[in-house]
């Protein structure tokens, strides 16, 4: 994310964004980029409007009328108009995140990079931010980094899975589900069987059903008297792909 957002130079290799090499064309990339980092702050004494105006000026949006219209539009879109004159220092985490998203969109970026945008938010704010991202995704390329599968389901057309710097999967969501199709099982077992089953199979979920456990596993084959094949979801696919030693590309 830092390399793509031109903040860190690659130690090897490169990345090309809209024909611009991140090693040599940083200024050009910054002009077409919107970036919402995972860990970011805002100047607490500035209001939401002032914060966006400051950021818009940093983007060299010189025309005052166009700048004001852009900011007002984004404030309305982020549902922040009512609080635009309040210092952001008093904002909740979700409101700050929406200001962060607005600042990333000021220059109408071709590429919007958002890093863990819903981390640490309460469910209501998480849904709101996720909906905004889904809405924005029709207008531009969004590169979203997240550990939350719900975020991916809501927003992503294409998914890449990185593990320890290695790309485990690149493709669309149906393709990702296809990697684990026919390999997801639900085992109805007694609690004392749990450790043994965990040793044999890759667990992707666990539910209690009375005195029994419903253990969800991903495996090519399962040898158990009370097992049935079930439809995979993205969490199953994610855990399966993270386990696989080789990358699966489509």
């Amino acid at each position, binding site marked *: 994310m830092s390399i793509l957002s031109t903040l860190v130079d690659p130690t090897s290799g490169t990345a090309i964004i809209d024909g611009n090499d991140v090693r040599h064309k940083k200024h050009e990339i910054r002009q077409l980029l919107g970036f919402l980092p995972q860990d970011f*702050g805002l100047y607490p004494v500035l209001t939401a409007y002032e914060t966006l105006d400051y950021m818009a*000026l940093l983007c060299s949006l*010189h025309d005052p009328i166009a700048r004001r219209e852009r900011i007002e539009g984004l404030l309305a879109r982020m549902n922040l108009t009512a609080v635009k004159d309040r210092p952001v220092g008093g904002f909740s985490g979700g409101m700050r995140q929406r200001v962060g998203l607005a600042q990333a969109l000021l220059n109408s970026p071709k590429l919007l990079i958002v890093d863990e945008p819903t981390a640490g938010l309460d469910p209501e704010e998480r849904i709101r931010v996720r909906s905004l991202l889904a809405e924005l995704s029709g207008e531009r390329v969004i590169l979203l980094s997240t550990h939350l599968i719900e975020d991916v389901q809501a927003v992503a057309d294409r998914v890449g899975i990185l593990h320890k710097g290695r790309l485990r999967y690149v493709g669309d969501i149906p393709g990702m589900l296809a990697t684990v199709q026919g390999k997801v099982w639900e085992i109805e077992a007694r609690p004392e069987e749990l450790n043994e089953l965990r040793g044999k199979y890759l667990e992707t979920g666990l539910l209690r059903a009375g005195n029994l456990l419903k253990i969800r596993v991903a495996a090519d084959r399962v040898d158990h008297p009370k097992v049935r094949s079930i439809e995979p979801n993205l969490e199953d696919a994610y855990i399966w792909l993270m386990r696989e030693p080789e990358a699966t590309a489509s």
Partner: protein
Amino acid sequence: MSNQSQSAGFTTWLLLFKYELLTGLRTAAWRGIALAALLYGLSLGHVDGTGCGVTALDAGETGCRLFALVTAVWMSLAAVRDTATRTRVIVQSRPQRSETLASLRFTGAFVQALGLLAALFVGAALARIIGGSGLLQVGAFVPQFIRASGVCLFSAALSFALASLSESPIAGLLGGLYSLLVLAGKEYLARLYDPAPVQNLSAYVAVSLFILMLTMRFSAARRRGSSPPPLLAVPGALLSLAAAILLFTNIARSGHDPHIRLNPTLELMAAQDTQAGARAAGFLFPDQHGNPTSLADYPGKVLVIALLSPHDVDTGSMLTALNALQKKYGARGVQVVGVCLSEDNSAAPALAIGEGLVFPLVTDWGTSSVPEKLAMSPLAGAYRATALPSVAVTDRRRRIIDIVRGASVTDGRSVTDLVEQALKAEPNWQ
């Protein structure tokens, strides 16, 4: 670049500057320090008499020393603000020149620091106005504010550069430490190393600009591949460095400082020896208006030659007494000539304007802070001024009648007695 886009760029810079200012001015820290500065200024102005000169000098000294340190701390924190507030990523990923970002941050924070300095001066001036000073006398604060601003600029540039390049406010505090070293180490540091004397200020402004240009250049390098490259930094650094070398060389060549250079003219002054009955030692120094002044300008007059330090607690009351003496006896051929022993050339004008002096107050530019009183200036040595103030009264042929030293000068009575004695012996003046 077209004129229109240049104009738009400048307008954008001004708007960004406004936000840089607001980020500091709205903080409780800035408001608290400003209030403390205002109260401290009010306390500085709480002195006897109705003049402003002594208070203006005190405010100037406080600005050059204490506020240079405050400025260093403030600028160090401002330099690393984006790290502390975690705004660095969203600011640095913007398509904005690195030198623009650095110049904005510096200018915004420095103007905030100047605001704190202004609060000190406003407090001091208010106190003097309440004490009865006239608006003309309050004018003495202006050059002292400019002088202190120059020193703070140097402190700001040094601390901002160190803090922003090392990304640590502690490194920036070295800028403040420098000020403290100068303050504590006046006995062994040459005057050239001190930015506070007004005659050194232009050189230190050039050094400050040089440091800032380097900071802008290296902040672009640290941001990795910022393009387009900086416009001002390299030529600006070269120009300011050349100016600084030129100005420092000029100060070293034309000044008088035992650590650097002895001036032949001042050595001639030192070779004189003044005691009762002998001819008063001559000198040629600039007065408060910058006009060269010597004792030869007052032939046939009874001279009252007062050697004083602007930092003595009784300076204000002594100047008031000497002013009254000049007004009372001037028409009878008495001339008071003050000699201000200060390392700072702005002290005499500040005292003269602030105290409303009607006699010339010259600056002894040979003054240097050394432990031995006799060596503090060649002229003071010639007058055997083992204590300040020292006031020599002459007859009409410039022969010393007596020299009054130390605290007994302050009330002016002993000096008046000597003047009366001289006038009685030679009442006629042509």
